[in-house]
């Protein structure tokens, strides 16, 4: 650097005189006042901090790769059986508001006063806790309130979660994102297919009565207007390769897996039981063409 005779290198000294002397009202602490081993931020300290960052990144990527992010079924405002759950970091508030005495008689208290005071207290902490002492055990009130808040948040989150799990078990519900991931794995649902139309199995016998019945049936609601399937219901094209007419009839009447029974809904739509029999037979004719 300064020793070689290549004058292209401009020697820059730490404390370069070109660093302008600015009169600062709030001069940072000079760490040489603390006995110890200070070091420059770049590169000495940043490289060490980077190693911590790298360890965190590796752990993070392991989590990402081992746990695909959840995706349930498309939002359906008419769904009444869905148990609403906020993300985990709002659970404590959600649980707090569920307590009857908080919401019914004292809405102000639960939804406004307590969270408001908590947030305001956090925001104004430096002016509420004005003592000179910085050690946590020398300011028992501030530390005590914070610890109490922490414990109650953890407790409420735990209660909310166990309550949710209990509710799932009681009603025999498998959370949607888990169910959907399972069905995708089992090949029941063609995930992501809605945006890349794959080659469809052609419909056959579209001049028959069964096709007309199909167009008046409830099947189209979930399986799509051309029974090409949707993100939560499989395609019915080529269904004849998989089931016989009797089996299809049974599925329509009794439902299968996540599909509810369709008998009543179809009768309400003006179809008869005989129509459903004809429909099942027509669906059984839907086979993929053999090459």
């Amino acid at each position, binding site marked *: 650097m300064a020793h070689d005779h290549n004058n292209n*290198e*401009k020697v*820059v000294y*730490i404390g*370069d005189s070109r*660093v302008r002397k600015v009169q600062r009202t*709030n001069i*940072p*602490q000079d*760490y*040489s006042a603390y006995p110890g*081993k*200070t*070091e*420059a*931020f*770049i590169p000495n*300290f940043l490289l*060490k*901090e980077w190693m*911590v*960052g790298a360890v965190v*990144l590796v752990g*993070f*990527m392991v*989590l990402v790769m081992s*746990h*695909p*992010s*959840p*995706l*349930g079924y*498309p*939002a*359906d*405002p008419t769904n009444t059986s*869905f148990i*609403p*759950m*906020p*993300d985990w*970091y*709002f659970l404590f*508030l959600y649980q707090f*508001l569920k307590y009857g005495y908080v919401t019914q008689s004292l809405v*102000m208290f639960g939804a*406004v006063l307590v969270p408001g005071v908590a947030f305001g207290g956090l*925001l104004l902490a*430096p*002016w509420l*806790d004005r003592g000179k002492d*910085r*050690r*946590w055990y020398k300011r028992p009130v*501030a530390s005590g309130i914070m610890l109490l808040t922490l414990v109650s948040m953890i407790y409420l989150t735990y209660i909310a979660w166990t309550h949710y799990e209990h509710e799932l078990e009681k009603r025999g519900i498998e959370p*949607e*994102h888990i169910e959907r991931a399972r069905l995708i794995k089992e090949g029941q649902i063609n995930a992501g*297919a809605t*945006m*890349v139309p794959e080659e469809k199995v052609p419909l056959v016998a579209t001049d028959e009565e069964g096709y007309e019945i199909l167009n008046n049936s409830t099947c189209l609601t979930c399986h799509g207007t051309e029974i090409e399937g949707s993100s939560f219901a499989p395609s019915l094209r080529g269904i004849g390769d998989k089931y016989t007419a009797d089996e299809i009839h049974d599925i329509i009447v009794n439902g299968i897996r996540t599909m509810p029974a369709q008998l009543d809904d179809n009768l309400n739509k003006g179809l008869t039981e005989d129509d459903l029999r004809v429909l099942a037979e027509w669906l059984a004719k839907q086979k993929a063409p053999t090459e």
Partner: protein
Amino acid sequence: MMNKLYNWIDERLDITPLWRDVADHEVPEHVNPAHHFSAFVYCFGGLTFFLVMIQVLSGVFLTMYYVPDIINAYTSVDYLQYKVQFGDIVRGMHHWGASLVIVMMFLHTLRVFFTGAYKAPREMNWVVGVLIFAVILGLGFTGYLLPWDNKALFATKVGIEIASSVPFIGDLIKEFLQGGDIVGAQTLTRFFALHVFILPAALLGLLAVHFIMIRRQGISGPL
């Protein structure tokens, strides 16, 4: 070559002081985990920033596929998750990163609180930090709706219901967030705008203030 280029620019713009100010500031021993392992608690702030950067980058890539309307939102996420090369990884980073940002930020807040680092003269930086906390919770709330599955819809309904119980301005908040009578198409586009433009802009601004203040005042001394 690089030196010549640097010198050429430096002679004209005097850029050296800009980065030397950042590079040369001393990091004291008591926050350096290389000297005291327990000082790892001082890493939480930096790690929060690191994770926020991951959120920004992964979020930018998600918007290349995500479509913010109620017909296509779900299908675009579904397509991204299962058909796009590495789409599940990018979405996974954004999904899990969101939780981790909150964990890290929480730990950082607790460290500052229990070391009494918010005391004079650093009160203003604490206030800015609490505002950052609120903005990040807002990002979590608005981002939760965007995949437009049942979980998203019903959680948002509950959240807006809670916000609307605030006296006097509750209905205004509800209308502002919902953009209509129901949680629907308007809500989704509003949350998208909040999540992608408004809140990140606020976050970056507040972060800049947070960092300028800590450079001015330095890290608080050892206990």
